[in-house]
């Protein structure tokens, strides 16, 4: 079975591209647009990787990230944070709270997909 990815972002235009490109790359993709929905989707079926926007409504990306890392059942889940907050301090905060990668918007979709492929191994 192909690896699964949860995209949590409230910008429909970026979700549109990410969903298309990731499906095209062979991943199973689900999308949510706020923090609570993200946690619910993860609880329902833990994905292999979460693409997590920091400034989603409700629980923000930091909170969702901390929650994922606080649950031993979800150990090994990859988290890539996407954000329009470009500061070094925010990047450090993201990584300190357990993100594997911190990607600042705008970014190259091709590079992002490549990075996800590398993280998830040959399964994808």
């Amino acid at each position, binding site marked *: 079975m192909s690896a699964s990815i949860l995209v949590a972002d409230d910008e429909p235009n*970026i979700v*549109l591209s990410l969903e*298309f490109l990731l499906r095209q790359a062979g991943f199973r993709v689900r999308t949510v647009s706020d923090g609570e929905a993200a946690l619910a989707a993860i609880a329902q079926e833990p994905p292999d990787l979460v693409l997590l926007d920091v400034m989603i409504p409700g629980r*923000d990306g930091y909170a969702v990230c901390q929650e994922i890392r606080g649950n031993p059942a979800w150990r090994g889940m990859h988290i890539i944070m996407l954000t329009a907050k*470009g500061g070094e301090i*925010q990047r450090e905060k993201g990584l300190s709270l357990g993100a594997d990668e911190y990607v600042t918007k705008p970014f*190259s*979709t091709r590079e992002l997909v490549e990075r996800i492929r590398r993280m998830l191994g040959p399964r994808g």
Partner: protein
Amino acid sequence: MNVARAQTGTLTGFVRSLFIGFAILLAAGFAALGLALGESAVTPIAIAGGALLALFLAIAWLLLQRVARPLDRLALDVGIIARENPDHRLRLVPRHWLGRIAESIEAMRARLTGAEAHGAQVLAEAQNQGAEQKRWLEAILLDLTEGIVVCNLQHQVLLYNQAAADLLGGTQSFGLGRSLFPLLAREPVLHALERQMQRLESGWAEPGPRFMCGAAGGERLLGARLGIVLDAKGAPNGYVLSFTELGEEATALAKRDDLLELATQGLRAPIANLRAAAETLSQNPDLPDAQRVTFQKVVLDESMALSNQLEALARGYRELGGGHWMMAEIHSNDLIASLIRRLVGAPLQLTATGLPDWLYGDSLSLLVLLELLLRQLHATIGAEAFDVAVSRSENRIYLDLIWRGEPIPAPQLESWLNRPLIGGLGPLTGQAVLRRHGSDAWSQPAGSGMARLRIPLASAQAGALRERPLRPQRPEFYDFDLLSHPVPTGRFAERPLKQLTYVVFDLETTGLRPADGDEAVSIAGVRIVNGRILTTETFERVVNPGRPIPEDSIRFHGITDEMVSDKPPFAMVLPAFHRFAADAVLVAHNAAFDITFLKRAAGALSFDQPVVDTLLLSAHLYPTEADHSLDAIAARLGLDVVDRHSAVRDSLLTAAILLRLLDRCEELGITRLGQLIAATDMAGRLRAHQHGFERHAAGSAS
């Protein structure tokens, strides 16, 4: 006054009654004599008696008229001159027997009047001058748009200008001699005063940095500066506050921040949308038409949005003036000391750990924020003991609150930070304080069951750039009896290296040759407990070496003969150091040097705990490096200590180096003290051998 007049009133009466009494006595005496001598003698005796009595009465009358009465009148007049009217004329009784006394009194009166007139003139001149100066001052103060208030140390207003009255809510509530505080927030002023006093004590006379201060019941935010007023003897007796409204400045700054946010973050999202859609389109030439149209619409919409944002950005940029937030250099020790003072009485126990450093920020808002966080942490998780740890990573200073327990969930921390802060800072929230410092806060595990709340702050370059003292290049000392002799036993042997207690110490000396009579001039030490440098648990003593301190050693340690003249000898402070180091492993850089001085002066005290030499430990761990001086190791490990107290600076630096070297030991499987000492021992023998060989080689070559 009445008493004096009553006394003068009695003089005439007293003289009169004296003479009358005497005359009656005289008459009675003659009458008795006549009766005793018989009738034949009456007539001559009566005649003689009558004549004598008449003569006596005449003299009495004259004395009364010419002396007693004039004296009484004189006393009355002099009293009037002295007390009521300096121009009062002396009304002398004619034909008095008081001689030139009246002239003398007149002369005295003339002098008195002259002196009085002179005094009045001087006073008037001084008043004129004072009034003139006051007019000048008023004119200057009136011209200033800055509010100026001068207060004594009881915070009573001694002087203020119109701008101050306007900014602080009108003259009716503001007045000389009244307290400053209903009008200006107490806490920021007291804090600035306290900081300025501290600066004054450490010899900084210039006015302090700007600080924020609420006014007029919290409606207004002022940017203020405080300077201490010294009296003639140089002791503080008041302070001057100058302030401006921060409203406009704050608005301008907020605008600039919005603009910057728009320029950086605001543009990222639309550009990301645009780029993703465009890349999708270009990389998929065979896209079905329906999907192609959707992506093309994204490209178009986002391009339009971007153009509009860019316009707004350019407009905002043109409207923007200058200005920046009020930040100042703060020494972390001062900040933590103030925090501990603020929390006196709270059931919280704070321990300062890590390497003290200079950071850049607004002292009070950081303090209020830290206090809020500590109180919330205490209320939420019940922890009472917190470490306040300072560490540096490149140009960033981390301020960590560390406790035993779980990290705080991000939403909870967020909610604490969204509350308005107390403490006279107007409507600021914790989040706003963090944003102002270009910072953020988060909570994460800190290992071994501990958690931390981290606030990264900018390091203050100016503090770091302050002149660093020279460090003498000491020859390396090897004394294996001293170093390897105490074999670790008991808890020293069993516990992991990081769990041992260490005392890292450093001596300054008159020279480098203990064998030739050089002596210690100071000793300083810090403690490491559970892998944390206890920043404030330090030992610092200057001692009298009992011999002149050579010039070329003074330039390294700055300790002069004068400074040690009233200090005890080294041997006398050693018992205190012995207690300080009692349960700890001793650590020093090039330890044999320091230990030699220590043991020589120790007398009956025994320093028999294990000793770790960071120089030899570094030589063992990094055998390919040539330079193992304190500075070279610090530079390699990226460590620096910027502390005003140079006495503990080297100890702090050595302590930080030790902790990093212990990390490396752990990686290499050195986990117990016995292994570590054996390893450094070997390194020492190798180095001694090598140096001996080099010296020998150099000697034979010359």
